[in-house]
């Protein structure tokens, strides 16, 4: 019996770059086939070919479904062949309801007029089928980012796809939401669909994948059953070298006693409830919590960037600082690497140099020299200082954002999801950089949805649940189970 999907000898060239070099890949029905690899390894290119984004003729090699060779001239053709691709970027219309989003472009009509009743009834049945407890009438903009991603996935599934491609689906999901997704995937697999699963999170890959393909530099390195693989072996194949795990990042030495930064009674309407925290010199304070726990809102409020902040006092080096807007925070020596770098951090159509120097421009004399120094220092891979930052890989973009803030010479560094959606090698570099900054005495607050990251890097862990601190752990006490319990709302007696 032929495979559900076969991609044979796929070769794709971009000007000056061989993006894919004779890659072959197959997918059986009833399996989850994971693709892993560093950013730039060719995963997205391969999926864009499968999804018809790069039409037939712009690449070499062939695609067969059920043994029949296919030629997709566009996204629509691929969809008609039963392929649904869920990209990392949301393609939802915020003002539209969940139901309208799911049926966007295929609205059921009666006498040529959109049949709203049919849309909502069918959407409700469909959401129930997926066991998603969402009201189809709700505008998508009212949902949390994780729920929006689930709607995006539901939208793709509603096209009766037999081949489902998921690109980093859990990047924005909480653990609970991820569980919901895994449940859906399990049922789809049982129903005979084939699922291609791209992820940087190896724990997930091992949990749900039947087979794992590793791509590196546009070539297929290996395809093996997941049960024959270990995480270190997989990482080694992805980067072509052994990478130390998070644990190796633990730094020796004891903490300085002096408090660099304090935030008192920070409150944000409907998001953060009376949170007080302090960070010592050279300390990494990890902040754990589920999505919607108010961690990002807390950082925004500290930085003077949250319009709904109603209370909060801040001090740096023991001196009280009124923070009314981001420029006040920057002046006081606070830097904030925001989440969603493309939306909040970068000027995509501007140069690497402009992006690096923007926040500190007033204190820079020789801009090109400073920017070049930062590029060398952080190992940012770019053609030149004048290249648009959009042309960089995700990991290098993230380094640009981090570099921009380090140029302001901060005393306090707030990091919100600093490694989301970047490859293993770049992650490791960012971890090393964070550890180095802490060793130099910077006070760091780290928010991350990846628990191992928080546990591996932090000296102390603060857990938030529904805007409140429900737990505080020293490094030695912080186990995944205990932290997760607090994150779910089981308050823990505070240490110290």
């Amino acid at each position: 019996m032929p495979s559900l999907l076969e991609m044979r000898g796929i070769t794709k060239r971009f000007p000056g770059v061989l993006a894919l070099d004779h890659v072959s890949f197959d997918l059986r029905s009833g399996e989850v086939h994971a693709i892993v690899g560093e950013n730039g390894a060719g995963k997205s290119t391969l999926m864009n070919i499968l999804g018809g984004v790069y039409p037939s003729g712009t690449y070499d090699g062939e695609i067969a479904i059920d043994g029949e060779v296919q030629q997709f001239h566009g996204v629509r053709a691929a969809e008609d062949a039963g392929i649904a691709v869920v990209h990392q970027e949301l393609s939802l219309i915020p003002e539209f309801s969940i139901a309208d989003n799911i049926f966007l472009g295929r609205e059921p009509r009666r006498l040529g007029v959109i049949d709203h009743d049919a849309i909502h009834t069918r959407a409700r049945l469909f959401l129930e089928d997926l066991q998603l407890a969402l009201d189809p009438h709700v505008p998508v903009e009212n949902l949390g980012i994780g729920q929006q991603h689930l709607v995006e996935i539901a939208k793709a599934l509603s096209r009766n796809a037999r081949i489902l491609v998921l690109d980093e689906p859990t990047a924005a999901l909480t653990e609970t939401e991820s569980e919901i997704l895994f449940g859906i995937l399990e049922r789809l697999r049982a129903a005979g669909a084939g699922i291609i699963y791209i992820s940087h999170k190896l724990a997930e890959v091992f949990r749900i994948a039947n087979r794992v393909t590793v791509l590196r530099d546009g070539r297929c390195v290996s395809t093996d059953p997941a049960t024959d693989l270990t995480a270190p072996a997989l990482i080694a194949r992805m980067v072509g070298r052994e990478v130390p795990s998070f644990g190796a990042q633990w730094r020796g030495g004891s903490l300085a006693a002096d408090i660099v930064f304090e935030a008192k009674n920070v409150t944000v309407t409907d998001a953060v409830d009376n949170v007080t925290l302090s960070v010592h010199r050279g300390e990494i304070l990890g902040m754990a919590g589920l999505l919607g726990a108010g961690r990002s809102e807390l950082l925004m409020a500290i930085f003077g960037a949250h319009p709904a902040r109603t209370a909060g006092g801040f001090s740096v080096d023991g001196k009280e600082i009124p923070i009314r807007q981001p420029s006040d925070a920057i002046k006081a020596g606070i830097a904030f690497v925001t989440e969603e770098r493309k939306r909040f951090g970068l000027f995509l159509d501007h140069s690497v140099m402009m992006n690096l120097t923007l926040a500190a421009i007033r204190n820079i004399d020789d801009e090109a020299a400073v920017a070049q120094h930062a590029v060398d220092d952080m190992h940012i891979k770019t053609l030149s200082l004048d290249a648009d930052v959009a042309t960089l890989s995700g990991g290098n973009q993230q380094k640009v954002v981090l570099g921009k803030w380090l140029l302001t010479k901060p005393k306090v560094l707030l990091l919100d999801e600093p490694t989301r959606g970047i490859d293993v090698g770049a992650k490791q570099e960012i971890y090393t950089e964070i550890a180095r900054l802490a060793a130099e005495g910077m006070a760091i607050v780290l928010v991350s949805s990846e628990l191992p990251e928080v546990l591996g890097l932090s000296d102390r862990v603060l857990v938030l649940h529904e805007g409140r601190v429900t737990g505080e752990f020293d490094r030695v006490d912080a186990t995944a189970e205990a932290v997760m319990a607090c994150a779910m709302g089981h308050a823990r007696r505070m240490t110290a």
Partner: protein
Amino acid sequence: MRARAYTMVVALIVIWIYFQWRTVSDLYPYGLFLHPVNFANLLKQMAVTGVLAVGMLFVIVARQIDLSVGSLVGLAGGIAAMTQGWGLVPSLAAALVVGTAVGALQGALAAYANIPSFIVTLGGLLTWRGVILYLTKGETIPVRLPIFRLLGVALLTPASGVVLAVIAIAAIIWTGVRRNPWRSAVLSLLIVVFIVMMNSQGGVPLPVIILIAVALLGHFLTQHTVFGRYLYAIGSNPEAARLSGINSQRYILGAFALLGVLVGVASILHTGRVGSASPDAGTLMELDAIAACVIGGTSLMGGRGKVSGAILGALVMASLDNGMSLLSVESATQYIIKGAVLVAAVGFDMAGRKRA
């Protein structure tokens, strides 16, 4: 980016060659269009649009728009004409103050009161036209002060033109010859040609000198100051700009105020050149200024655009205007052609961007 700029230059040269060819006659066997007298005339017409386009660039780069420019040219020019009795300097100052104050007011409404600048300045388009109609009771006021008039039409003496050219070429060689010798050579050559051409018809028109000064100032502000850098950042990604510690409101207000200053300058040049201030002076000038920016590669989505492009765009518009008038093209046809050129220029731009 660079390829687009060259495309624009090539288009301009094609337009020039076409008009030159079509204006060949017994009297002008080599064509009239690029004849020094006509070309100086073209540049004088362009000066007003060019000054406005440079100001408009600041606003558009910050993802804003100003539709009130034409009405404000009428208002500022009218007030300058009405205050001639106070003497030359107070009357010119009145135009600049009115331009700046109105620009700052509209900027404040857009930046601090969160009214979209499209709406604020659409209101301004109506309001300021109404104000000048009210103040002048619909009558045209002649320019009586000779120097005021000269500002719009005077020619520099050939000698001072040569001096300026020498200074310009020296500056180009001093700043740029090591980095880009070819560019410096081409620019120097262009300056020599320009001066020889202008001097052969009496000298460089003063409005053109003012336009060049405004353009250089605009280039400096956009490319070499924090103010300019922040405007690009605000236009490119307002949210990221705010989180980078940029007080966007202040800079947006600044961009509108700066445009207001330049509207004042343009109103003086225009009133001086025409020789009178009529209540409908400046009508539709905002569209010429916006068109010049857009033809020159400025994105209405903000964050992208250069002064050199806006000047080039203004030159394209002025060349079309002037050339079609020489050929006695009907005004109906002129409108249609200018509209088509605007849309086509952006169309080519988008097509080129998609491929890149």
